[in-house]
């Protein structure tokens, strides 16, 4: 009923606006892809209306999810099936499966999209795969339970964090050697380069902090702490980290604290805590960076945050135990 009312209103608009509407109808809206760890599916939501467009069956235990740099594909790691499902972002079908070795948890791609980096959680490896052929280029031993991967803008450095070894491992992509191992606070989950590539932020879920690392000296230059009135320290578990395009602000999902922290990326001061669903882990921006999507593992939904007002505006149900999110513009 509501959509009909809206159509009626639109019909009354001036001609120019009508033409815009027609254009918008032709171009497909952005889409959000959410991996549901227990359901073995990926939920696809319309990026404007947040309506469910499709539920794509995957192989077993989908977790890490990544949009290819050309936005043609969405890749999802199937931990219990030892492969990656490649979803065609247009047809929303799994078009290919790439073998990864055991227990792929998450992945990242080189800036050109020619290589896929996979963290093999159960055997402490990073597997480097040629995306075109699916052939393995290299396997690099790292710490135990490797998870979050970050690729530098020039593609020469790949960082992987190992949850049980509690390290950030810097890999040189020309030699495939691990060039630095930095001990961070307990159970690191995500690594993210700042927009200007000057620093690397690593979130530590059990340690309850975010370490800011200088990738040139491989030293920790700052550790961000979180204090939420009325929330026990034990519940503060930083995971997802994302920076606004101007690089000034970072959003950090805090797990069992059920909040997303807004952090000044220059002073490292926490400016605000936004209440979201339960156990938010991974986060992602909308294409224009006006919205931030927060995936809540325990409440099986995505909280939508308005970036300018820094407020949660809506929540949208997805599958069971949603894990990660990728956005196709």
């Amino acid at each position, binding site marked *: 009923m509501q959509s009909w009312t809206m159509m009626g209103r639109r019909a009354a608009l001036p001609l120019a606006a009508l033409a815009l509407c027609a254009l918008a109808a032709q171009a497909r809206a952005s889409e959000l892809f959410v991996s549901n760890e227990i359901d073995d599916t990926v939920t696809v939501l319309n990026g404007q209306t947040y309506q469910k467009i499709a539920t794509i069956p995957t192989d077993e235990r989908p977790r890490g999810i990544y949009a290819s740099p050309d936005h043609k594909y969405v890749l999802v790691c199937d931990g219990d099936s030892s492969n990656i499902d490649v979803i065609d972002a247009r047809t929303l079908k799994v078009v290919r499966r790439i073998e990864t*070795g*055991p*227990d792929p948890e998450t992945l990242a791609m080189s800036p050109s999209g020619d290589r896929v980096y996979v963290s093999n*959680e*159960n*055997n*402490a*490896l990073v597997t480097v795969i040629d995306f075109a052929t699916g052939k*393995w280029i*290299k*396997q*690099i*031993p790292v*710490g*135990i*339970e490797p998870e979050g991967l970050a690729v530098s803008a020039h593609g020469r450095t790949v960082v992987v964090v*190992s*949850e*049980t*070894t*509690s*390290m950030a*491992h810097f890999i040189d992509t020309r030699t*495939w*050697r*691990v*060039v630095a*191992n930095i*001990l961070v606070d*307990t*159970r690191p989950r995500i690594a993210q380069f700042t927009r200007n590539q000057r620093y690397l932020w690593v979130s530590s879920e*059990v*340690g*309850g902090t975010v370490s800011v690392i200088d990738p040139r000296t491989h030293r920790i230059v700052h550790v961000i702490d979180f204090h939420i009135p009325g929330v*026990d320290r*034990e*519940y503060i*578990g930083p995971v997802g980290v994302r920076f606004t395009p101007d690089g000034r602000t970072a959003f950090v999902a805090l*797990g*069992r604290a059920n909040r997303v922290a807004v952090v000044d990326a220059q002073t490292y001061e926490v400016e605000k805590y936004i209440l979201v669903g339960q156990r938010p882990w991974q986060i992602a921006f909308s294409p224009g960076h006006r919205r931030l999507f927060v995936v809540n593992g325990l409440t099986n939904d995505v909280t939508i945050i308005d970036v300018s007002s820094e407020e949660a505006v809506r929540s949208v149900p997805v599958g069971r135990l949603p894990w990660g999110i990728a956005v196709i513009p």
Partner: protein
Amino acid sequence: MTVRRAAGGIGLLTLAVLAGVSLALVAAAPARAAVRSFSITFLRKTYHFNKEVLPSLLETHPADLGLSGSEEATSELNTAGRFIGWHFTLDVVTVPDGGNLAAAARRLLARGPRVIIADLKANDLLTLADLPAARNALILDMRTIDDSLRQQQCRANVFHILPSQAMRTDALAQYLVWKRWSRWFIIQGPTSGDAVYAADIRRSAARYGARVVADRTYSYNPGSRRSDTGYQQIQTQMPLATEVSGDYDVIFVADETDLFGDYLPYNTYAARPVVGTQGLVASAWTPAYQEYAALQMQQRFDLYAHRGMTERDYGGWLAVRIIGNAVMRAGLTAPLAMRKYLRSKGFLVAGYKGQGLTFRPWDNQLRQPVLLSTPLMTVSMSPQHGFLHPGYTTDTLGFDEPETKCNLGQ
């Protein structure tokens, strides 16, 4: 006495081979700088165990119980150590049942204070802790759950990994109160441990506003359990044992040696669930637990030991991980300095519970969420939502600072 040296690192290699990884693809680890080594002693006694007393054929008693947890963790430390120049060895010292533990420990400690993981029962643990040579040692108790070792019998050189009996009854009590199953019928077995556990149940009831509506001691003769007609005897004996006049919500059983507790479910006089040492059980770990990434730990342990990970394995695993943090994170190797660090605000260890675990300074007990499980499922995890504490929510379980009879904190 036998001494075995478990080489760390082998576990990882085996794991990679098992997983079918082409080793040719694996890039070489970076050249190591000066590698420092640290030795951990794993001291255990092989207590005589009569398999006949296990009520279920599905229950097993592997010889590597506990030790495999420590071995797996040592290999994990060496994965980390490889990157930052540390190598750990686990020196296993086994004293046979009836052997002289004190003599073995004295030989060990003759070379100076050491870091010892103790897979020992309460009496032997105290024998070890009270040796003059152990005064400056660090002993990690990975096995006991006895309240007394955290209360009157606490020792400054001993740190307890597993939750105490009181933490267990509190963990169950919070859940029962949350369920509003607040009328409890206590059935207590014949051992002294059962008496302590039953006293803890009464303490938990008073603490959380539950009511003990019946309280009974039961001594079951296990002679007939493996006979062909065993179930018939049980079918008549258990209803008799559980018949009381008033109504109750749950049977809270205190039977630490598994004499009869497992016979209670479905054999009780009234249709009521069983919790306690059997039925719904409180523990630090079960092979079925998979939340908070515990699935990864379970899979890793299974690859190493070819069996499920028990609570004692978890105790052994966590003890080694704690030592790893003190050595690699804090850079400490002297046992006394490590003791100080473990009691400080700077210390924290991850144990697949969704939060960092720390030691209580007043009794050296590890703070931790406690699992409530049946043999196949994790039912819940305490502290329950809504139970509050000014310091740590996990301090709602067991003896809090104002109640302690230990006072190591002073």
